């Protein structure tokens, strides 16, 4: 954009060195944005002198791009002391002549900063490339080359890199951004012109990723003229405002065209008389609009994101000023992170008030509320700045925090608690959902066969057991979640749809919910009310993870690597205890077997849960609820945790775990083959085996462990059993013994039952002889009650404990009498 005028400057530069030296603002010519920034400074012109960038172009004939600090002798020609790079040993001869100049009002030496920036740009190397190739160019030198190749107009500089390389420079940059960035630009242009003398565009530096970001409400007068980083949402964009940069005047008398007049501190020096010696007509110069050079400018309103607003506040807004390429970089509704300079400007209304705004340097779009969707294999690790702009990056501190978190012994329970904390109990369902969020490893064999890593879950339950809330919650949390209701979805709506474009007549493929939620979770409510036809479409999706279309001239197979979370009511709306589980769910076995976990959520009269409820509510009313709040992770941490695990943790089965898997599977098969059970129970199939592997992998992921261990497998088996209430299922009939249901039993409750069971065991060992006389349950209960910790045990509890012992073959239970065998 500036190219049209730069040759002119080139010619002027050497011919009138005085002019250049006295107006350093001309130097920032190389960066329109910087100049605007400085334009509004009403202080004296920056009193440091830097040699015009143009001069260095002449130097390139002698110094090759590879030599380190450059621009040596030539500067001597400039009238004042110059900003040679005093720190470099090569340029040692310059140091003597350089008298330090300081940024006005500070103790920052221009030369020092300049040298520091040069060192940084030339020598900074990424952490990963360090050591491997020492002779390789620095990160930003590569960046500069790339910019040159692409004919780009800016170089993105990660502030973290600056910090790592030179803390002092970082500090100066944040505190005095106007001055330091101007120097930055100059240094950059010097390097650019060294590499490619005829490069015409002006490259600017764009700083991003500051060490600390500020919230909008904490911006205060002390931040003025500092570099800040803000997060927020764009709510309003003004139209693009042209801002004049260079004006050309024409004499209305003789038609003489003036040289372009550059904007100086917001003003254009309009010539009062014609500059042509022959004419000199007074007040005859008029602006020639189409010869002037304009730059784009835009005012954008940024508003705080909802999560930063404190209780009882309204969102704050801040004006952003965008220049040139940043114009239209974001549109209303985008969540962005901007890096810029916080500035104040006097308002016309009252001289004492100031409007504030942020001069933008860099924009990064963010969306933190969802997990990042990409799997690592999808991330074709292209280096370059783009990557950072598109990918949700966790900073080091956050990763460290997550790792700390994962080391806690109760992380599994803690995550469970944090998942939908307002839904009470249903702990095991939440565990399953947690596994779904983490997911297993997808596997693609060389032979082409692929195994999905996604876990599908079906929730079947009585009305009013908060299934839909769980679904909604997962939908909010999951990446690319799609929420549909079975009633309102058709087969094509779920998969893909071929339609004819009304204008061109071409057939076009339109994606449905499942394709859209590729790599996400597709939540389907009211699964039972879905039409048979639509449901059958799910078969392919749920196992092969593709959607195949063959109609109207289009034969395609679309990826639909999605986890399905569906919920349904049992047939007849309420669970009928007299029917078998399969009959209650009433879905074709083909589909059922594709769900890794099928949860029966039953509403059962249980005094224990009633008491829990009563206690919960009483404490809600009479205690300060804040004090009883458990330590749950907030949703942002949870998503970060899940995203990190999905991206970086790929657990492998340990030998021990593999053994356990085989053992468990064989046992499950055996149970399924119970005589007379032919169809009534869900038998174990290879699919179950895969499910178990996926679940154990997910469980290992939860711990950030790269190895699936034995207890993961045990837990996976437990989840599978609990889900189907298999522990409570009478295998001969396939019905559930309602007394044995343990839905929603909390961890503490399970612990209590385990304790009871072991207490009963020791009591029996103590009181009864092997093959000795039997004992009545009530007697046992009385004995047990003598122990202080079991004062409130009910017969019913004891019975279930003894039944468990009986199943182990430890005792025999006949009616009410217990006999040890």
């Amino acid at each position: 954009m500036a190219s049209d005028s730069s040759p002119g400057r080139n010619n002027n530069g050497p011919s009138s060195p005085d002019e250049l030296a006295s107006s350093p603002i001309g130097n920032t010519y190389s960066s329109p944005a910087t100049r605007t920034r400085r334009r509004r400074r009403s202080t004296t012109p920056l009193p440091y002198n830097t040699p015009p960038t143009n001069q260095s172009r002449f130097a390139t004939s002698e110094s090759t791009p590879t030599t380190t600090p450059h621009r040596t002798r030539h500067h001597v020609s400039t009238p004042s002391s110059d900003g040679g790079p005093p720190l470099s040993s090569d340029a040692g001869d310059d140091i003597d002549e350089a008298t330090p100049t300081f940024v006005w009002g500070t103790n920052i030496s221009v030369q020092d900063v300049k040298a520091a920036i040069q060192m940084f740009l030339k020598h900074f190397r990424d952490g990963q490339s360090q050591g491997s190739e020492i002779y390789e160019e620095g990160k930003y030198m590569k960046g500069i080359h790339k910019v040159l190749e692409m004919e780009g107009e800016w170089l993105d500089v990660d502030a973290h890199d600056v910090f790592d390389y030179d803390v002092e420079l970082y500090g100066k940059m944040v505190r005095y951004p106007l001055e330091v960035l101007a120097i930055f630009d100059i240094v950059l242009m010097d390097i650019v012109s060294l590499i490619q003398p005829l490069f015409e565009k002006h490259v600017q530096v764009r700083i991003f990723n500051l060490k600390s970001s500020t919230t909008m409400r904490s911006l205060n007068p002390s931040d003025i003229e500092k570099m800040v980083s803000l997060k927020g949402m764009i709510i309003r964009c003004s139209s693009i405002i042209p801002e004049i940069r260079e004006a050309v005047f024409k004499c209305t008398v003789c038609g003489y065209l003036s040289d372009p007049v550059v904007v100086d501190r917001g003003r254009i020096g309009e010539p009062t008389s014609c500059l042509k010696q022959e004419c000199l007509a007074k007040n005859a110069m008029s602006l020639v609009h189409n010869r002037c050079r304009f730059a784009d400018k835009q005012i954008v309103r940024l508003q705080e994101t909802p999560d930063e607003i404190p209780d009882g506040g309204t969102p704050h807004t801040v004006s952003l000023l965008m220049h040139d390429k940043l114009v239209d970089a974001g549109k209303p509704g985008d969540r962005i992170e901007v890096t810029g300079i916080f500035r104040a400007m006097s308002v016309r209304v009252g001289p004492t008030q100031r409007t504030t705004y942020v001069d933008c340097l860099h924009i990064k779009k963010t969306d933190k509320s969802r997990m990042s969707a990409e799997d690592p294999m999808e991330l074709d690790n292209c280096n370059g700045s783009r990557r950072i702009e598109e990918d949700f990056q966790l900073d080091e501190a956050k990763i460290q925090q997550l790792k700390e978190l994962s080391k806690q012994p109760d992380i599994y329970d803690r995550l469970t608690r944090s998942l939908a904390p307002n839904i009470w109990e249903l702990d095991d369902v939440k565990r399953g959902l947690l596994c779904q969020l983490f997911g297993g490893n997808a596997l693609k064999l060389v032979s082409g066969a692929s195994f999905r890593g996604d876990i599908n879950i079906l929730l079947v339950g009585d009305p009013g057991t908060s299934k839909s809330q769980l679904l909604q919650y997962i939908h909010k949390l999951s990446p690319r979640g799609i929420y549909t209701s079975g009633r309102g979805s058709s087969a094509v709506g779920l998969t893909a749809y071929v339609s004819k474009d009304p204008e061109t007549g071409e057939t076009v493929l339109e994606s449905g919910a499942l394709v859209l939620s590729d790599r996400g979770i597709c939540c389907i409510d009211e699964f039972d009310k879905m039409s048979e036809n639509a449901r059958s479409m799910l078969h392919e999706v749920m196992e092969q993870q593709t959607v195949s279309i063959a109609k109207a001239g289009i034969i395609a197979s679309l990826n639909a690597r999605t986890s399905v979370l569906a919920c349904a009511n049992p047939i007849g709306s309420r669970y009928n205890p007299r029917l078998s589980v399969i009959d209650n769910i009433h879905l074709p076995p083909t589909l059922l077997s594709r769900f890794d976990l099928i949860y029966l959520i039953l509403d059962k009269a249980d005094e224990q849960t009633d008491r829990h409820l009563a206690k919960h509510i009483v404490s809600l009313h009479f205690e300060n609820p804040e004090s009883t709040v458990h330590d749950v992770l907030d949703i942002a941490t949870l998503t970060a945790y899940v995203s990190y695990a999905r991206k970086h943790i790929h657990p492998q089965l340990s030998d021990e775990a593999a053994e356990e898997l085989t053992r468990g599977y064989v046992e499950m098969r055996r149970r399924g083959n119970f005589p007379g059970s032919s169809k009534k129970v869900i038998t174990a199939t290879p699919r179950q085996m895969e499910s178990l592997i996926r679940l154990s992998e997910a469980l290992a992921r939860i711990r950030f462990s790269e190895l699936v261990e034995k207890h993961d497998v045990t837990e996976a088996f437990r989840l599978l059993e609990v889900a189907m209430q298999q522990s409570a299922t009478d295998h001969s009939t396939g019905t559930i013994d309602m007394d044995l249901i343990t839905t929603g039993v909390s961890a503490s409750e399970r612990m209590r039952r385990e304790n009871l069971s072991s207490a009963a065991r020791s009591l029996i060992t103590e009181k009864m002889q092997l093959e000795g006389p039997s004992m009545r349950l009530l007697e046992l209960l009385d004995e047990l009650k003598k122990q202080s910790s079991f004062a409130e045990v009910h017969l019913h509890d004891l019975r279930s404990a003894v039944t468990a012992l009986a199943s182990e073959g430890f005792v025999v239970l006949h009616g009410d009498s217990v006999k040890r065998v």
Partner: protein
Amino acid sequence: MVGPMYDFLANPLGAVRSTFDKAIGSESDPSSFDGKDWGAVDLFRHFLFDQARLSQVPILNGATINWIKPNTLVRFRGMIQDMLGNELYVGAYKDGSAWRTNKFMDISQCPVEFNSPDMRLWDRRLLYCVPVPGLSSWAESTSELAVNMCMDSTSEQRDKRRRMDIEVLDHNDFPVPGDEFEYSPSAKRMREDPSPSQYLDPISEGPCSSHVILPDVDRDSLPCLVKIYDSPESELKLNDVFEFVGVLTFDSEPPSEKVEQDEFSNGLCDDVSVNLPPNKVPRLHCVIHRKLTGYDFLQNAPPTEPKPHLVKEAREALLRHLTSILGNDGVAAHFMLLHLLSRVHARADNVAVGKLSLNLTCISKEIASVFGTKLNIVIKSLLPFTKCIPLTMEYLNTAFLAPKKDYQINRLIPGVLQLAEGSHLIFDETCLETGTLDAVGIENTRLLKALTELQKVEYDFQYYKMEMMADVQILILSEGKSNILPADIIMPFQPSSSGSSDVVPAEVLEAWRWYLATVRSLPHTIESDMQKAVENDLVTARQADRSLGSQDFSRWLTMGRLISASYGETSLSLEHWQMVKELERLRIDRLK
């Protein structure tokens, strides 16, 4: 501390200035006052509270704005309707060799050399405040009282007559004597002050300064832009009701000619000054603010100590009155009393604990015409903030219930449901007929439902919605059970007479208001053995009836709490718990 050297009422800025001069004399560096007070606020606090002069400060409202002089001390009672962010201003500057301050004023004769070192930029918060929505007339009259007290402090009788007179008078011929202050000795001192006007706004210095004519400010809803200095953000929240005491600035001049109205300056310029022109909306530079409770709206400050016999008496009398208003339906009156006492006292997850919305059913249009208006009057005379909304199809389809952010003017457009904490709403559903709800209507019903169930209102910020906590008592009158507003208590209304319409003496009303305000704010606990008993009761009830859920339990406990509170007690007793069960039984019987 020595007596006031300045007339705080008439020349508050003088006090500000003198304290500043004193402070700067000892400190010499104004940067030490960044975001801090240098002692001016303490001086005012001493004057207003320790010397109890608060009542002498005139209240700013639509009537008084016409005669209150700018740059004097005023009070404003209102609800924070919108927060307009922070504003930077030149807090201190060097005038020659002396530092001057601009704190607590809008415009000064500051030499404006931008970014000079002889200048400190400070910030202040802008709050847009409006009179509390639905403020009852009895709560409002405090202001007039204060005005009268300011004008002359004669006997109460005359006062009352005067108050009625004022209500009749149009604000145009409201007595606008600029010399009320003559009565106060401090005003005289002000006259003697050598340079009182030096720090006054030059614009309002003109002869017309005391007679600011407001073109189109509604008398009832004078908004005010309050500028808050140096107070933590968490102290002031949206929808809170506050009393702000501070310096009034009010610009009678039309805004200076709009030069350079280009888009650039418009886009960056403060929306505040554009959309809230200083000649329409007065500015109050707040020195001291305090949060108001229902208690503060009572006329005479009655005994703070809730004496048991007073509470019992008031309870009996109020209950009797409610019973007679409700056509001798004693059960309904009991529930009504509990309903009037309810408030959200805690929140856990999604549950607002303590709310008790009441739905009186079996009310046909005719019954509603008899009892609805009476109820409305009674509630209006008892509670400070009330509103009655007849729900019709048209209303649902057109009303703006939720506040909405307008990004064009960068303001929160108030909705009907933007209410102060503790407001009371009556929804009259009897006039609702069948019809079609459009998109707005559906959204509105959703909002109403969320308000009744969760005590939350979703504010529409266009790109996202933000839930704001509310604490609103909701009374619904309907023929059958209302589905739009699912109340906690469904109460079939069975009047046996047409209800009385006795005129209640003012003192009695006053006592009832005091009773409601006091008892509502009582703390509450439960003894551990009582807790056990309650738990057992709940478990047995659920064993007997599986349909009972957490909502029912919640309701019982809330009722238990409110019943004991209504007797002025702070912990639940078995007797009151039995009363809850009895009331519930009576209610369930009626439902059958």
